[in-house]
């Protein structure tokens, strides 16, 4: 029964990873930039929520009302001020710029908030759960994270497939020059995509902060988990990202069940096995040419 429990908890954990990963996936899909500051931006969102809860006395879930717009605005500005320039400064520039940003954010957070371990007070919501019998309990928080992850991915899928801005994003992603010829302002398209991505990052940061603990130096770890979810699932597939998150979550909890220190390592090993055996991911979207 402990194994069944490990898998169930892994699926819930996977919800968080899927939520982390969809922002990374979106920015890569539209801008073709791998944002190496993704994890640190997630941690920044968690700290923003911490400030909002402690100064405004808000519940962390309500703090989302503040944190999501702030992060989205930050995404818009980030794209306009940094990423767009880096796209024009050569192939390596976006990586160098986002990595520089990662180090700046990490160390600025470290100086401002110290290295102490923090968490967002979620109250009963964080501890209560649904008893399924046989020693298996599903926490409300974990369950709602998974639901939010699925909802965000489905929403993104809908936006990309059905709305004008989604069509603009797909067009710009496929061929920025032709899209510009058709009258699309690529600066605006990119900025909206980054804003949406950072809104999902805000969600991910707050849910992660309620679930466990975080420190200013957690960012790289989160980036790696998001990246693994994207690659396991398959680049360019949002449902693949969900599947990748779930597989990673299950691998970690099952690994930790074998021995507590094996959790993260088991996730990395599953990632490497997928990379070796099926480099295009579990659910690679078929290229139609």
């Amino acid at each position, binding site marked *: 029964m402990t194994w069944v429990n490990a898998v169930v908890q892994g699926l819930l954990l996977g919800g968080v990873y899927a939520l982390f990963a969809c922002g990374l996936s979106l920015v*890569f899909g539209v801008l073709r*930039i*791998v*944002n*190496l500051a993704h994890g640190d931006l997630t941690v920044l969102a968690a700290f923003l929520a911490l400030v909002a809860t402690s100064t405004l006395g808000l519940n962390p879930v309500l703090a989302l009302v503040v944190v999501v717009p702030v992060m989205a605005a930050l995404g818009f500005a980030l794209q306009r001020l*940094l990423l767009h*320039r*880096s796209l024009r*400064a*050569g*192939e*390596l*520039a*976006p*990586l*160098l*710029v986002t*990595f*520089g*940003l990662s*180090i*700046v954010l990490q*160390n*600025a957070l*470290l*100086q401002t908030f110290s290295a102490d371990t923090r968490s967002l007070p979620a109250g009963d919501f964080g501890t209560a759960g649904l008893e399924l019998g046989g020693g298996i309990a599903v926490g409300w928080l974990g369950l709602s994270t998974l639901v939010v992850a699925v909802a965000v991915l489905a929403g993104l899928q809908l936006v990309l497939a059905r709305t004008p801005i989604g069509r603009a994003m797909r067009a710009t992603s496929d061929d920025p020059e032709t899209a510009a010829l058709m009258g699309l302002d690529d600066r605006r398209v990119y900025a909206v995509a980054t804003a949406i991505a950072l809104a999902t990052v805000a969600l991910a940061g707050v849910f992660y902060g309620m679930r466990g603990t975080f420190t200013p130096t957690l960012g*790289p770890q989160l*980036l*790696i988990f998001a*990246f*693994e979810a994207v*690659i396991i699932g398959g*680049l360019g597939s949002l449902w693949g990202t969900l599947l990748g998150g779930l597989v990673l979550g299950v691998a970690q909890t099952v690994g930790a069940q074998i021995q507590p*220190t094996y959790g*993260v*390592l088991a996730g*990395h*090993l599953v*990632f*490497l096995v997928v*990379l*070796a055996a099926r*480099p295009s991911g579990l659910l690679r979207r078929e290229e139609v040419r």
Partner: protein
Amino acid sequence: MTDTTTPAATDATGPVVVRTTRASRAAAVVALPVVALLAALPYLVAPNITRLLVGLFTLVLLATMWNLLAGYGGMISVGQQGFIGIGAYAVLVADLIGVNPYLGLALAAVGAAVLALPTALLVFRLHGGYFAIGTWVVAEVYRLVTVEFRAVGGGSGASVTGLSVFPPVLRGAITYWCALGAAVLAVGGVYLLMRSRLGLGLTAIRDEPTAADSLGVRVRAAKRVVFVVAAAGCGLAGALIAVDSLRVQPDSIYSVQWSAFMIFMVVIGGLGTIEGPVVGAVVFFAIQQLLEPYGVWYLVVLGVVAIAAALVARRGLWGLLTLDRDVRLLPTGYRLRP
């Protein structure tokens, strides 16, 4: 450095291809006495100064290796700390089995190179930014596997004990000579590598991989060589850090901070030149020493400077110093002289 002038055409009056510049001939004359003076330093200055320089030489080695990867191989790696860690642990293992830790330096370079081969097999499936994070994951795997071994201290690390047979002054001097040798070997090695046929291929790959491939450059093989050489260099750097600090702690030796240092040094100094990373290492070292008392703010400052350099001054400090006039102390290309 002899004058390697070769006739470009059978016609003796036509332009000739040269591989040296006036600056490089001057640099060659200056380099030898400078290296000789540096080698004599343990006899001339106090041990705390040579101790500082060990840190600087290690940074020069690291920056040169990262530049080889990114500036010439076009591969941005954020996982070189994996090989740094392997190198440091090679010294610990050598120490454990009773081998002189200085011999562990060679073991470290070889061990990192051997491990780089299967690593390349996996991470070469990824490109661009995903390659970067892929190397990072592999470095994390190295760390997580390392801490499972009790013999090398598990999660808390261990000390290098075998060096206590040397008197401290002698130990400091030997470590210094090793570090100086490693830095000179790295800069000279990359210089010779880039002047070779492989270097020409790498330059082509960096500029346009598809075109290089179609011209018959064996892109994958060339990149693999670069990856393995850079791993060996980083392994050596890790071993130097271990014999210098006499203590290996997994979380700090496998820290992604090393990658940040390497990227900052190379981007600020000048990506894709041999001189740039050396300049970058010196500047980084100076800033680190000056701003260390103010906590990690120096990393924030360096990060901002690196972002600015990547966006507006792509040739880095070396480009600014030489006013973009293509001054090369260590030229790798072919030039035409009328």
